């Protein structure tokens, strides 16, 4: 049944106003993630039982709506890249479910991993390492469609069309090899390659982080254009809060393998409801020469996700922690019961309401007081 759905469409019809693969309608999330978990065991005892493990992703639930851009932010080690890899099945989840447009992925009766990967593609941070150095740009882009049964000629035509679309002249660039391109050009090739399979969801894992600022802006513009043209949905992972705010409709903040806060990006940036989100925002370097940062919002490095504190994971670094935070782990809960479904602003903090009320006070005053 799934095979049918894929074969119905013509392989070269890149531009489609309504996606024929759409099943549940606009209201059904394109991707639903339920209780996703991945622990990496780093030490086993005599009987092979795990003694210590990295809690990379520790029970994450979220939905990606059709046509939106969901941003994921967090420090290194918070599990944002692991989440992306789990979604692509580059890593096997320990537990949890990934549902793509209503079909569970990799389960009997659901979508096979191969079919899921046709519809979900990923762009990585390291543009050089993610291209085969012995394949020309055209071959790299045409490779995926050929694996999925498209003839060589058609695949090459598609590759050239995509090159044109990402702003690289096909005649000039098609026969080049990755080492002959600049970082920005290589990342454009990676984006073209990801689009070659006509995916519906594109996972961008720090895709613009390694680029220079002037090139980053070009690639961001390109991503926005492509999204409109192909009706794509983006999962945008980055550590740069400015970029995430610019491109995302909704934002998810992760901390030590769990979701700390999630909400519409303007709501989240204007009135963060988790102390960690607040700290992340005030850690961004100031662009005002008269108003430089005076106090670091957080002390020390992000802790490693091996030995987790009891209670709230953030409480050892939190300036607002109370006894309850040290004892019980807060669940991701909506701030206002009235808000509708997916657009809810949710925070995993016992004192979320108080944190949000603080939004107008600069964090420096709060720390020093």
């Amino acid at each position: 049944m799934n095979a049918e759905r894929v074969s119905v469409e013509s392989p070269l019809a890149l531009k489609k106003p309504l996606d024929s693969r759409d099943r549940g309608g606009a209201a059904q999330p394109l991707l639903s993630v339920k209780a996703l978990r991945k622990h990496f065991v780093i030490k086993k005892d005599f009987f092979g039982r795990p003694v210590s493990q990295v809690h990379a992703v520790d029970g994450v639930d979220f939905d990606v709506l059709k046509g939106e851009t969901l941003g994921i932010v967090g420090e290194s080690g918070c599990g944002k890249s692991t989440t992306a890899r789990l979604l692509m099945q580059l890593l096997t989840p320990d537990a949890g479910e990934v549902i793509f447009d209503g079909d569970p992925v990799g389960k009997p009766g659901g979508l096979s991993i191969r079919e899921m990967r046709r519809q979900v593609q990923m762009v990585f941070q390291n543009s050089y390492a993610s291209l085969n150095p012995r394949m020309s740009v055209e071959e790299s882009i045409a490779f995926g469609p050929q694996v999925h049964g498209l003839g060589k000629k058609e695949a090459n035509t598609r590759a050239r069309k995509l090159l044109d679309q990402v702003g690289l002249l096909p005649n000039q660039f098609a026969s080049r090899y990755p080492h002959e391109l600049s970082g920005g050009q290589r990342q454009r090739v990676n984006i073209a390659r990801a689009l070659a399979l006509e995916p519906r969801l594109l996972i961008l894992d720090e895709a613009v982080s390694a680029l220079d600022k002037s090139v980053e802006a070009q690639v961001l513009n390109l991503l926005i254009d492509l999204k409109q043209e192909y009706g794509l949905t983006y999962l945008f992972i980055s550590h740069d809060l400015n970029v995430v705010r610019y491109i995302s409709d909704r934002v998810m903040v992760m901390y030590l393998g769990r979701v700390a806060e999630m909400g519409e990006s303007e709501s989240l940036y204007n009135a963060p409801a988790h102390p960690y989100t607040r700290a992340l925002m005030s850690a961004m370097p100031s662009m005002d020469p008269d108003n430089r940062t005076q106090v670091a919002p957080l002390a020390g490095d992000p802790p490693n996700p091996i030995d987790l504190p009891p209670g709230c994971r953030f409480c050892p670094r939190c300036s607002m922690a109370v006894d309850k935070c040290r004892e019980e782990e807060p669940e991701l809960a909506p701030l206002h019961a009235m808000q509708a479904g997916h657009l809810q602003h949710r925070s995993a903090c016992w004192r979320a309401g108080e944190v949000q009320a603080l939004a107008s006070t600069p964090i420096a005053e709060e720390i020093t007081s």
Partner: protein
Amino acid sequence: MTAPSPVDYQTIPDQAHRAAATKSEQLVDVQNLKVHFRSPGRCVQAVNGVDLTLAKGEVLTILGESGSGKSVTLRALMRLLPERRTSIEGHINVAGQDVLKMSRRELSAYRGFTTSMIFQEPMLAFDPVFRIGDQIAETVCRHEGVSHAEGLARALELFELVRIPSAKRRLSNYPHEMSGGMSQRAMIALALSCRPRLLLADEPTTALDATVQIQILLLLRDLQRELGMSVIFVTHDMGVANEISDRIAVMYAGRVVETGSVDEIIRAPRHPYTVGLMQSRASGELKGERLSAIPGSPPDMASPPPGCAFAPRCSLATEECQQNVPPAKVLGQQHWAACWKLEGV
């Protein structure tokens, strides 16, 4: 002074700054620095006539994208570039010493003692098989001729200076036992071990998380004030430059295109490249709008354009810009920019 060639156009305005700073205040004086990397059949002109001056106790940020020559300039100040394949021209004067004329012996006294450097990857700066405390002590012994025990005592002081918690215990750690922020602090301690007068910082916070980056920036700012060092800080991030520096020099394709105080560069940039950089920053306010990105990409430095290196990407460029390298124009006491079209920006 050598006879002015078309490339050392920047000498004129920096003369003003040079004259303003009396001899005793000035620590670094770089004149018409050119660094070319030679390999068979290819010559990469990484730096093409850079002039810089730095006063005592001043923090200068060199802001630029990858390939702009900012790190190469910094490495030239330490003579860290591979001697055989590099040709360095111009003058580098640090604390009254001519760096380019130093012998090996003079260099090893100069490095660490007058000038020291911190890097982007702290893990690579330490030897993984020795304890961090011993590595710092070794540096102190080598430069100041004291015993290992005294060196260790100094290392402890330094660890406290860079605010490493439980400093004593941390001294006996191996590099892999430290987190990213902690090892960056340890590298700063190592760099400061012989009380250098000039600290060169090559993107020391780029590999760190934002929450750690701001801690390191604040630490460097405090240390600079406490110790009265001069600092040259290299970064590609405008925000970081704003947090740390007194003065900013913007580099593009091997040349400084604009210099000014932080205020002047951030609030009133004049060179089209600086203006473009400021405008291409993504932020929440611009949501839904297109970013005004600078088109194209930086030139290949093996064959740089004959005129202004930014001309191929510049919307204001004319025939003149394609042909001739623009001279620097003085815009304020410290502010100058090298562009033919300053009036049009």
